[in-house]
């Protein structure tokens, strides 16, 4: 997205920020009784379509590590030439290849496996004056470093307190009991523990991704995008002073890309390719619904490949519009596709994560 769109984007961003008082008012009302277990869902970060971010459809430089959903869909840039769509599926969380809770609890590697998702994304972009169609597929795994930070494992005794226990009361033989009160008490207990975890939005996590795809100039032939392996670590400053451990996070991403096409060569007869390494660091501060951030990467000078068409440095925010729906805004500088210097760029995207579509 180019600088010429910034005024419209800023207008949208300002409109979004005006929503904040409504949420503040909602959070100040007395805590209501849980009647719907949907309310127990942890929603501390935007849904994530890794194929999109791995292969350059999103220019944000840091691969976010977030809660896994059974199914995530995202639509970005509606009404602009850069439309893109994507979805991801996490088999272990569906009935396709379900993982058992006891297996999930065996350790970090099992939690990583249970949170392994497959994603697909496609989109268009104008590069060097030529419309490009891009498609990408990816596999991504992520897990919290500590089981106590995993909302799925709140069924166990953890840092958030002793295990919740379902108490159905006395049920004489032949009776037709009403379990609604017992269920509600149990769900309230689970909810309390999930909320304690949810408060800590900067949970220390690890992610690993692999992706590949292709890119095709309008009317041209398709070219492989090469392949990308990325590793992400979020560190929530566990054990440091409260202000840091409760309200700050450092996210570090390493990415290795091989045989990636040089963007400006895509419209020529001979496509040039290169391999590259990218490191990016994001420092965030804020709450579970709004956080400001600054990020920097080592996107190199010279000819620009797809994965390097990202922000070299940027500032912005993530804002939770409602449960499962996030808006992100970034403004910063990225390499020009011509390779000659930098240009101001901005990004406004919306992410929506349906809770379960199986």
């Amino acid at each position, binding site marked *: 997205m180019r600088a010429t769109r910034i005024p419209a984007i800023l207008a949208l961003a300002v409109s979004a920020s005006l929503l904040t008082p409504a949420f503040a008012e909602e959070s100040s009302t007395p805590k209501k009784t849980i009647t*719907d*277990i*949907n309310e*127990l*869902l942890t929603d501390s970060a935007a849904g994530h379509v890794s194929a999109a971010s791995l292969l350059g459809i999103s220019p944000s430089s840091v691969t976010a590590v977030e809660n896994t*959903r*059974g199914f995530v869909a995202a639509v970005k840039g509606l009404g602009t030439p850069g439309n893109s769509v994507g979805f991801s599926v996490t088999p*272990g*969380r*569906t*009935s396709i290849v*379900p*993982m*058992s*809770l*006891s297996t*999930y*609890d065996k350790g970090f590697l099992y939690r990583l496996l*249970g949170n392994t998702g497959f994603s697909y994304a496609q989109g268009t972009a104008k590069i060097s004056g030529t419309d490009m169609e891009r498609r990408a597929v990816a596999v991504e795994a992520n897990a919290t470093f500590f089981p106590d930070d995993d909302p*799925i*494992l709140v*069924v*166990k005794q953890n840092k958030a307190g002793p*295990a919740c*226990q*379902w*108490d*159905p009361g*006395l*049920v*004489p*033989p*032949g*009776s037709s*009991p009403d*379990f609604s009160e*017992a*269920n509600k008490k*149990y*769900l309230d207990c*689970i909810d309390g523990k999930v909320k304690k975890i949810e408060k800590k939005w900067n949970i220390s996590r690890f992610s690993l991704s692999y992706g590949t795809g292709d890119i095709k100039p309008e009317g041209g032939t398709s070219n492989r995008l090469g392949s990308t392996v990325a590793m992400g670590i979020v560190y929530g400053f566990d054990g440091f002073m409260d202000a840091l451990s409760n309200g700050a996070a450092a996210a570090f991403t390493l990415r290795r890309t091989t045989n990636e096409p040089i963007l400006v060569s895509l419209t020529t007869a001979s496509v040039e390719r290169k391999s590259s390494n990218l490191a990016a660091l994001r420092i965030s501060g804020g709450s579970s619904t709004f956080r400001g951030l600054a990020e920097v990467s080592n996107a190199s000078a010279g000819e620009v490949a797809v994965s390097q068409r990202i922000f070299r440095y940027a500032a912005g925010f993530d804002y939770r519009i409602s449960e499962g729906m996030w808006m992100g805004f970034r403004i910063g500088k990225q390499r020009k596709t011509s390779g000659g210097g930098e240009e101001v760029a901005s990004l406004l995207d919306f992410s929506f994560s*349906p*809770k*379960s*579509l*199986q």
Partner: protein
Amino acid sequence: MTISASSPVTFAFNRNGGADIQAEVQVWIKKDVFNSNDRPVVRLPFHEATQPTESKQINLSSGTYVCVALCLVREALNGVFDFRFDVAGTPAYAKNGDVNTTPNPNDLQNFKSDFDLNIA
């Protein structure tokens, strides 16, 4: 269903799947009509949702009892569940399925079954 056993009796609860399965067995002395003053001989909770098997052993006097098996299955990692109550090694009540029956992320379902237990 009637299960015959001798004391002490082992009650085992087996679970599998990505759902959170909470269970309890209440053992009552068998009688024709129960009133509000009646109490079970023992309540056996099974709350370790990440454990594939939990078992408890109890001593019961000779006689006939009614066991009430109770379950809450809540969608967690996913909604798939498979559980079985065993009494003295004999399967007494089992269910399996998927509680994830709506687009919502955390569906739940309760289950209940009564069966007789004869202690020699």
